């Protein structure tokens, strides 16, 4: 960062900074050096002084020591006290010197020396000297000598020697110091020199750099300037600095480039100028050449074209000789005259306007012109008129060039005429071709006739014409009403004449209508032509009338040839029709065959299938001529087949080339209804060649099912007969072989009887059905009341049945005409079924009601129900509900089939609805007998507020005839009657159904009687309000019980009394909207 910054500085500031920095460095270095030298010198002199001082002290010490010894010896030798005092003085001085010495900075040796000296001095002062003094005083010099010899002297000498030695050393040191200082000063000198040299070097480097920075670019610039001047390319790279030189570079480059650009521009301009000049020269040359060319053109023009010049006003000012040649006018006759001298005969006003416009706008006008020559002959000219314009754009004259195209024009006209003729021929040829095409490809006779007559009319311009195909009488006409055709044919002579003469023409005067607007009398030419077959049979007839134009020989020949062609076409048409008819017939036959037929070619492609097969396998649309590859038709087919692998094998075998006999196989088609199919395959040959294989699929479901049914029948009969037979035979055998009590015998006999009866029933059923199927069953129709019949059958079930049968009767008209016993058989059968298939104590509800024209009986149970998929089969023979619960119940499987047979024979219908697990409802409808006489006198009593909501009453009565009587009476009054014979069931029913009233018989079943029912009804709040009418053979025994009873009728009473009582009750409740029990009214009613 800082580097680039630095590098970007201008040269001036850059070098100013460098030099300043150097200056500071030099000053600082010199200063430091100076201070350092000074300090070194001062240190050296200080050390020298110390050393001198030390040497001095040691010298002084040595002197003092010497002095001491000297004085001491002096004393010893001289016994001079003075000397001794002096010695002591010297010792003191020694102390002083020692003290000052010790003050100095001492080396360890010197300290040792000082210590020794001090020790010695102390010893000397305190021992030796006093001893010596003592010896001296005693003059014992001997001892003194000894004393001195014992060492003190030596030690003193040592000390002295040391001092001397020290002095020498100190000198030595001093000398060294001097030398060192000298060395130091030398070194400083050298350093200073080196520093100067370095500085000098640095300056040189800087200067060199400056030079390089400045000079190099300048040199380059110089080179570039030279090359610029020389006009060469300036190869000067950009200098990436921002300093002065860099900027100079930039400026230079800019200048150089702009100079170069300018130069290039100039060069280009120059070149352009050059080119323009060249072009100018060229143009001049061409102009000259053109001029000469024009002259020669003019010459040539004059040779072959008429040229004239007209003034702006249209006056001829010049003509060449050709004009004279063309027109016959001399130049003098034309020049000076306006152009209108010549009449332009062929120009329309629009063309003249165009010419005018073109002329005035300065454009060239050119056209073909017809004028008259001087001698009056027509002259065709191709004329070109060109105006000459002056500089202002104004027209000052015209030049007119014309060529004589008269002969050309004539040739042209001839050519056009020829072309028109060719065109006509071509059209005729095209029509002929079209006809050929049409008669070849038209397969419809009517279309054929129409196309043919169109052709004839156009080709030969018939005014009216007729074409008739004899076979089928198909005709096409033009100008003749269609109904006239027959007349033509019947007309005498024509067909007869044609037998001998294929075609002929008659001429007659045209009738007025044919004549049209023509003012002159015209002839009409009738052309008759027969189309004959190879066997000389007349296939078709053509008649055509042309008014005013006869037939040329060529035309007659043409038409004759045409008729031969048409004969072939018609024969072919008939043949096609026959083939087509045969083919369609075959196809219809195939498609109407119940068997599925398919034809498979040798490569496995299916090329034909009939409708039955399409339906059998639900193939999509199939058009004749469709071809289906095996992977499509076979897979589609096999996908629906149960035994697909076996069938595939069968197909493969049958389609194989070596398959020569026929083969057959049975298979089944899945789906909702399983179909059984028998397929056989036959190879198809035409002469020796195998064409393919024919497969015929026959739906054998019915046969298959019949077969199944037969074996089922055998199995059923076997089982159904063997079981009762076992009982009969078994018990008989027991009776025969065992001794037993009479009651047991009785029981056995009863069982035998019952089982034998069962056997009989079964056999009867079989026989019944057999009879019905063979049509030998006799019916004895009689007038019946179905309500009565139903009640009667229910009566049979009252005792001993586990199931309660509830009867809801709202049929006003229950009269039917039917075989009583057969109907009882049906009802018994249906009731038995309902009971059998409601295990446990289910309730069976029987309902009777009218629907328009019919009576409907419904038997509804809440039993096992029937699976949805089996409902449809149940009315077939030997069909039983196929589940385990139903199997246990057993049966012949004939009951419903018998019922169906019977009901249908009575003109009724039967059916059932069921939900598995919820119960079954079987119904049948029989047509009712219309009542012969209405009962108008009873109408006022009839309760019929609306048909849907009949008032509902319940009769609880166990006497069959009585409940029938009451029921009939009440139904006649428009009530819906529900029958009950058990109090408990009646009570439960009353809880479920809102009854308008309940009629109770007091003498009912064993467990509960009518009173119990009344109590139950009155004690339950849901039924407490229902009016009750008692119908009893007993007198009004217990009045206390009667408080809740609305009406008490003592049997026998007229049924009308009951209905009128009920009527009253309903009127009362209807009026007040609630049920009332007025005591007084009850009493009042009693009087009735």
């Amino acid at each position, binding site marked *: 960062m800082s580097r680039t910054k630095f590098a970007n500085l201008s040269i001036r500031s850059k070098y100013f900074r460098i030099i300043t920095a150097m200056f500071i460095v030099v000053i600082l270095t010199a200063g430091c050096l100076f201070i350092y030298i000074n300090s070194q010198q001062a240190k050296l002199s200080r050390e020298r002084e110390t050393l001198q001082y030390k040497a001095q002290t040691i010298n002084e010490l040595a002197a003092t020591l010497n002095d001491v010894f000297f004085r001491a010896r002096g004393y010893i030798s001289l016994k001079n006290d003075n000397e001794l005092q002096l010695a002591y003085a010297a010792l003191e001085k020694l102390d002083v010197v020692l003290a000052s010495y010790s003050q100095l900075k001492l080396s360890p040796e010197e300290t040792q020396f000082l210590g020794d000296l001090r020790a010695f001095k102390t010893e000397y002062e305190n021992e030796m000297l006093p001893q010596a003094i003592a010896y001296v005083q005693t003059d014992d010099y001997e001892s003194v000598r000894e004393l001195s010899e014992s060492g003190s002297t030596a030690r003193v000498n040592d000390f002295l020697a040391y001092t001397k030695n020290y002095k020498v050393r100190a000198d030595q040191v001093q000398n060294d110091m001097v030398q060192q200082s000298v060395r130091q000063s030398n070194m400083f000198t050298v350093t200073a020199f080196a520093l100067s040299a370095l500085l000098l070097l640095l300056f040189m480097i800087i200067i060199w750099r400056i030079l390089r920075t400045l000079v190099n670019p300048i040199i380059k610039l110089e080179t570039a300037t030279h090359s610029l001047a020389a006009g060469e390319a300036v190869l000067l790279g950009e200098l990436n600095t921002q300093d002065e030189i860099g900027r100079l570079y930039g400026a230079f480059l800019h200048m150089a480039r702009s100079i170069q650009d300018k130069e290039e521009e100039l060069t280009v301009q120059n070149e352009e100028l050059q080119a323009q000049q060249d072009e100018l020269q060229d143009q001049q040359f061409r102009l000259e050449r053109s001029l000469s060319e024009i002259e020669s053109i003019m010459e040539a023009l004059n040779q072959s074209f008429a040229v004239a010049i007209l003034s702006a006003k249209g006056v001829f000012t010049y003509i060449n000789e050709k004009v004279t040649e063309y027109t016959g006018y001399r130049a003098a006759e034309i020049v000076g005259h306006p152009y209108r001298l010549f009449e332009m005969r062929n120009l329309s006003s629009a063309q003249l306007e165009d010419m005018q416009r073109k002329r005035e706008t300065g454009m060239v006008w050119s056209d073909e012109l017809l004028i008259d020559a001087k001698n009056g002959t027509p002259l065709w000219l191709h004329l070109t008129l060109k105006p000459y314009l002056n500089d202002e754009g104004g027209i000052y004259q015209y030049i007119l060039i014309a060529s004589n195209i008269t002969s050309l024009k004539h040739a042209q006209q001839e050519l056009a005429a020829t072309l028109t003729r060719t065109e006509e021929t071509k059209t005729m040829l095209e029509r002929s071709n079209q006809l050929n095409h049409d008669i070849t490809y038209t397969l419809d006779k009517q279309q054929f006739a129409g196309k043919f007559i169109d052709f004839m009319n156009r080709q030969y311009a018939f005014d009216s014409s007729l074409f008739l195909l004899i076979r089928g009488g198909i005709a096409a006409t033009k100008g003749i009403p269609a109904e006239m055709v027959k007349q033509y044919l019947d007309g005498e002579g024509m067909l007869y004449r044609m037998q001998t003469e294929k075609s002929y023409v008659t001429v007659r005067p045209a009738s007025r209508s044919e004549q049209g607007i023509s003012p002159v009398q015209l002839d009409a030419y009738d052309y008759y032509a027969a189309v004959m077959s190879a066997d000389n049979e007349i296939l078709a007839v053509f008649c055509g009338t042309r008014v005013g134009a006869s037939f040329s020989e060529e035309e007659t020949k043409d038409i004759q040839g045409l008729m031969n062609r048409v004969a072939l076409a018609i024969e072919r048409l008939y043949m096609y029709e026959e083939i087509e008819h045969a083919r369609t017939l075959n196809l219809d036959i195939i498609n109407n065959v119940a068997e599925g037929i398919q034809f498979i070619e040798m490569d496995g492609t299916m090329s034909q299938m009939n409708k039955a097969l399409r339906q059998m396998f639900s193939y999509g649309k199939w058009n004749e001529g469709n071809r289906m590859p095996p992977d499509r038709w076979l897979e589609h087919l096999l996908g629906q087949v149960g035994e697909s692998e076996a069938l595939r094998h069968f197909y493969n075998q049958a389609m194989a080339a070596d398959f020569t006999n026929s083969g057959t196989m049975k298979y089944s088609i899945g789906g909702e209804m399983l179909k059984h199919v028998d397929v056989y395959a036959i190879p198809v040959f035409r002469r020796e060649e195998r064409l393919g294989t024919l497969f015929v699929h026959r739906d054998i479901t019915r046969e298959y099912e019949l077969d199944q049914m037969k074996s089922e029948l055998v*199995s059923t009969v*076997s*089982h159904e007969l*063997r*079981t009762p*037979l*076992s*009982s*009969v*035979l*078994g*018990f008989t*055998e*027991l009776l025969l*072989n*065992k001794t037993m009590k009479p009651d047991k015998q009785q029981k056995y006999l009863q*069982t035998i009887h019952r*089982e034998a009866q069962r056997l009989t029933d079964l056999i009867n059923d079989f026989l019944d059905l057999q009879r019905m199927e063979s049509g030998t069953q006799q019916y004895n129709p009689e007038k019946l009341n179905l309500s009565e019949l139903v009640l009667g059958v229910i009566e049979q079930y009252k005792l001993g049945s586990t199931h309660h049968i509830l009867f809801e009767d709202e049929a006003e008209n229950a009269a039917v005409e039917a075989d009583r016993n057969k109907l009882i058989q049906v009802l018994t059968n249906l009731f038995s079924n309902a009971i059998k298939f409601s295990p446990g104590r289910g309730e069976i509800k029987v309902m009777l009601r009218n629907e328009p024209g019919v009576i409907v009986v419904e038997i509804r149970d809440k039993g096992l129900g029937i699976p949805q998929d089996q409902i449809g089969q149940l009315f077939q023979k030997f069909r039983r509900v196929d589940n*385990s*619960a*139903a*199997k*246990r*119940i*057993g049966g012949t499987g004939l009951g419903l089939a018998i019922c169906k047979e019977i009901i249908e024979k009575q003109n009724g219908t039967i059916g059932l609805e069921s939900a598995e697990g919820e119960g079954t409802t079987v119904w049948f409808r029989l047509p009712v007998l219309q009542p012969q006489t209405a009962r108008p006198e009873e109408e006022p009593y009839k309760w019929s507020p609306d048909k849907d909501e009949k008032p509902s009453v319940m009769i609880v009565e166990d006497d069959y005839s009585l409940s029938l009587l009451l029921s009939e009476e009440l139904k006649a009054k428009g009530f819906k009657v529900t029958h009950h014979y058990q109090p408990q069931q009646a009570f439960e029913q009353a809880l479920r159904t809102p009854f308008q009233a309940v009629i109770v018989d007091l003498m009912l079943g064993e467990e509960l009687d009518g009173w119990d029912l009344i109590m139950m009804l009155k004690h339950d709040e849901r039924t407490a309000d229902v009016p009750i009418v008692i119908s009893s053979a007993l007198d009004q025994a217990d009045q206390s019980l009667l408080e809740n009873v609305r009406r008490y009728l003592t049997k026998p009473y007229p049924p009308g009394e009951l209905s009128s009582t009920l009527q009253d009750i309903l009127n009362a409740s209807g009026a007040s909207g609630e049920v009332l029990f007025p005591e007084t009214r009850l009493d009042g009613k009693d009087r009735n």
Partner: protein
Amino acid sequence: MKGEMELQKILIVDDEEILRMLIEDTLEDLEDVQIHTAEHGREALDKLAADRFDLVILDYMMPEMTGIEVLANLEESLKAATPILMLTAKAQDTDRIKAQEAGVRYFMPKPFSPMELLQIVEDILREPN
């Protein structure tokens, strides 16, 4: 009367009540024999599982479960140890073969003779197990 331990047990399986009664009455004079009845296959299987029988008289055609199906549901060891007499209205050879394959040892077509049945049952019961 011998001790209860030595009573032989027969199970009659038939959906027809009358036939059950007939067989029961036929066999009632047999000494030391206890007769049990079952109305359908399920009941028969329950009883067979609960008790050991010396003879099972089995009907072929029964709702829900045929005699053959009862045998198919019977434990193999139990089947081997229990003599089975099949009484059936299906008396064709194929039925007989089917029954034998299912493990039926004795086969009697309906209608049958009670005395003959008695004789066969006595023989079976006398055979050492």
